């Protein structure tokens, strides 16, 4: 018989990184299902390829860095990165888009910076930004949501489009994206609500004119509002399970909402309102799944508030005055850059170091 030596504490909460990541994946389901419903089979194709590429890249990187892939893969972080990137890109973007994005996320953003825990930038968002500025055409080719599309592609069509950019009958992606606009004679190419607003507003239309488009129903545009509500639901699950703290989502949504309200009061004709900002684009996804990535976020509670508040403001500023219709990725990367400074100035006061008054 021999005795076992270990350092205290001898008791551990049995919640490992792998389990945390599993919860993140589970919480993504509602939003993911909404995306699947409104944007078709492409979403699932992107996801599967992204996960496959991510796992392969992670293993090769770990091998190249003399780490055991078996232990490195167990933490599920690569899968989460892949999933976050997969749901961010247009569902029927060609397959090599997601491959390039995933490889960049895993190899360059994560492992070249020292692997899990050492990356300065959010891998999924860095990968997304690289794709967006390198392949703007493919990266903005969103399908119209189900209900607007003249023809929703079948699974086989989606697969063909994903792999070859043509359906089995020879229609191109551009043709598939045409929308039945009802009143208007010519079918127009579909754009996301935010993209549409940006284009219209830049052409001198007022907000109400721009909102004439049939996709603007309900809160913030057909399909997108449900996707956002799905991610909100998943985010609440993460909060309830204490996988994430409330600070980041609350601060992000609050600062974005504050800016949106201020904007719609100051210039109601030219700046989209609260519901558009909160429930369109990737707002909820960013608030609960992107900005909460612990590695690239600020660490202290106060720091998290500042960090997420900064993201909210940046999203609003870029959406309203920048060149891109949605701005989550840029906002998150810019805030990532500020994290060391935020951490430096939000250190909690250690016990006994507080200056007592009187």
């Amino acid at each position: 018989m021999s005795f076992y030596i270990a350092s205290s504490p001898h008791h551990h909460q049995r919640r490992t990184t792998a389990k945390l990541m599993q919860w993140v994946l589970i919480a993504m389901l509602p939003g993911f299902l909404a995306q699947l419903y409104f944007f078709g089979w492409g979403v699932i194709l992107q996801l599967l390829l992204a996960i496959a590429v991510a796992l392969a890249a992670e293993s090769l990187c770990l091998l190249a860095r003399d780490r055991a892939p078996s232990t490195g893969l167990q933490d599920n972080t690569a899968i989460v990165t892949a999933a976050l990137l997969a749901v961010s890109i247009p569902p029927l973007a060609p397959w090599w888009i997601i491959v390039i994005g995933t490889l960049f996320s895993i190899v360059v953003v994560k492992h070249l910076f020292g692997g899990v825990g050492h990356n300065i930038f959010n891998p999924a968002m860095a990968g997304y930004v690289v794709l967006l500025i390198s392949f703007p055409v493919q990266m903005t080719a969103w399908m119209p949501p189900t209900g607007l599309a003249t023809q929703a592609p079948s699974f086989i069509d989606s697969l063909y489009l994903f792999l070859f950019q043509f359906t089995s009958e020879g229609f191109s992606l551009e043709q598939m994206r045409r929308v039945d606009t009802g009143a208007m004679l010519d079918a127009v190419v579909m754009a996301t609500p935010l993209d549409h607003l940006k284009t219209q507003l830049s052409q001198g239309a007022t907000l109400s004119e721009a909102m004439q488009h049939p996709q603007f129903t309900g809160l913030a545009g057909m399909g997108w509002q449900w996707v956002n509500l799905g991610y909100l639901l998943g985010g609440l699950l993460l909060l309830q399970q204490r996988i994430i703290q409330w600070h980041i989502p609350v601060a992000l949504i609050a600062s974005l909402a504050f800016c949106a309200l201020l904007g719609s009061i100051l210039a109601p004709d030219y700046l989209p309102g609260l519901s558009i900002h909160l429930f369109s684009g990737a707002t909820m996804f960013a608030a609960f799944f992107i900005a909460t990535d612990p590695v690239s976020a600020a660490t202290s509670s106060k720091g998290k508030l500042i960090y997420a508040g900064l993201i909210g403001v940046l999203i609003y500023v870029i959406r309203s005055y920048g060149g891109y219709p949605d701005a989550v990725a840029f906002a998150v990367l810019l805030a990532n850059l500020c994290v060391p400074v935020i951490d430096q100035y939000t250190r909690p006061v250690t016990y006994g170091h507080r200056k007592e008054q009187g």
Partner: protein
Amino acid sequence: MAVEISATSKLWRFPGGIHPPERKAPANLNNIQRFPLPPMLFIPLHQHIGEDGELCVAVGDYVLKGQPLTIPGVNNGLPVHATTSGTITAIHEHPLNHPSGLTGLTVCLEPDGKEAWYPRQPLNNMDALSQREVLQHLQAMGIAGLGGAGFPTARKVAGAKNIDVLIINGVECEPYIASDDRLMREHAKEILAGSHILQKLTFAKQLVIAIEDNKPEAAAAFREAIEQFSVTADFSADGADPAGSAARTNRQPILKIVPTRYPSGGEKQLIQVLTGKQVPVRGLPADIGILMQNVATAYAVERAVNHGEPLLERVVTITGEAVKNPGTAWALLGTPIDYLLAQSGFKPGKKQRVIMGGPMMGFTVTNLQIPVIKTTNCVLAPTHKELTPPQAEMACIRCGACEIACPASLLPQQLQWLAKAQDYAGLKQHHLADCIECGACAYVCPSQIPLVQYYRQAKAEIREQTIEQQKSEIARQRFEARQARLEREKEERLEKHRKAAEARKAAQAARQSEATATEQDPVKAALARVKAKKAQQTAPAANTESPQGPAGSASQTTPEHKVDQKTDQKDAVAAAVARAKAKKAERDRLAQAENNNEAEKPIAAKNAPDHDKKDAVAAAVARAKAKKAERERLAQAENNASTTNTKGSDNG
């Protein structure tokens, strides 16, 4: 600003904290047991902070229960007592109750089963004694803090001035441990009495007893004790005057129930919970008018003052699923823990862990012979299913869970990076020293990083560096002092030489003038010269003749004593040289003999023990010679080697 606590005053919150499973049952269900005497007790001399005491017993001595074994050392150390009557069978190095598993000097006491007491001296008239006398008594009784670090109680009380509140800590927040819980349930009255003694000693205005809300039975026991106390209060004598009654209301103990949250039992955390104040960094609770003592310490104080019993035993929780009958027991200090475990039905599993203390801050031990000491509150033998051994450490994902859990508001994650990078300056800057090693951060860490272990090692390294730095500073000063001294001595020597040379010159000049003067008295001068010559001649053979003889007579007979003194010196030198020669010859002879008799030496030494010293010297000299020879041989060999080498290179 004075601290004041009332029964209804607000409870505060310390940051962080965790809620690990408590698992106090089943150990807290039954009464405190008393096991039969163990067959052997191991009483280590080093049990608390401070220098070890000086041993005052010897192997073979018969000692009585409560008899001091040591005289306390410097720094107000505490004596160590025999915990039962019996015979001291050995005093040797024995494994210590310490995470390092190192050994220390330990008295092995074989109990005779009689439990015969050493005379006890209770302080019956405590009120008549000064604080100093009572504290001396507590020190002699070996009372130390039984809650944490085992700090001598008398020293803690003596160091505390202007105490507003005395807090008796019955929180016992660590999972599994039920020692204080059981003690409070069964001995609330005694604890209360001990607390009052401590209150009198500290002149504290208020007495607060703090218990976690997961121990309702203990709280009930205290409520009852306090009620009884207010009825029969021994302070009611001075109830006549209003000032006295005011004092009495203050003497009424206040029971505070604090919410269960680990580590609320930590001194600093409990103070924050009760008062909302923080102990200033590098300060003591006394700086904000607070003194804290553990309930078990209060009980020990009561035993010491009212019964004259030294601290000989304490309550130990023996628990964990590898133990068949978990519970609490009175264990004599020095009881080996394997005895306690065996009495509780210990069934070790494969790679069994035995933890001294609780699951959060305890340490694993490898040797079950280690004794119970004053700070041993729990022996935990968990199964692997119960407390899973640590998994492989994974990379930190900066999730910040540790920071949320940290009760000291540190940045555990940052500290971990710094500790791994061995950035000790950075660690100091991030207040590593304020870490209380509670383990909350490592408990919540999803990457299974043994954070506390990193901090401990870093702390030890910083401490070591500080010590080394102090030592090297002293060494530097000593080196510089020595250099200065050598320099000074050299200068002094030169000065002396210079003076001697001057004196010589002066003497020469004097002789010359004398020479002219002697013409007036040629006879005397001639006589002196003859005498001097004679002295010079006798000098070489000065072995037997006293050198003082001629010189002395010369100084008596001649006024030219300067010249004679010189001769005198010469004589002395010659004599010394001769002596040295003789000695060398003697030594050579001895060494020769020694060399010849090398093989027989041990027998010879045995035969003539009184020649030991001489032999040793001779042996030393022989070794010196051998060493010299060896060195020469080596040098030779090296020379040879180098020549062959050069030859070799020439060839190549």
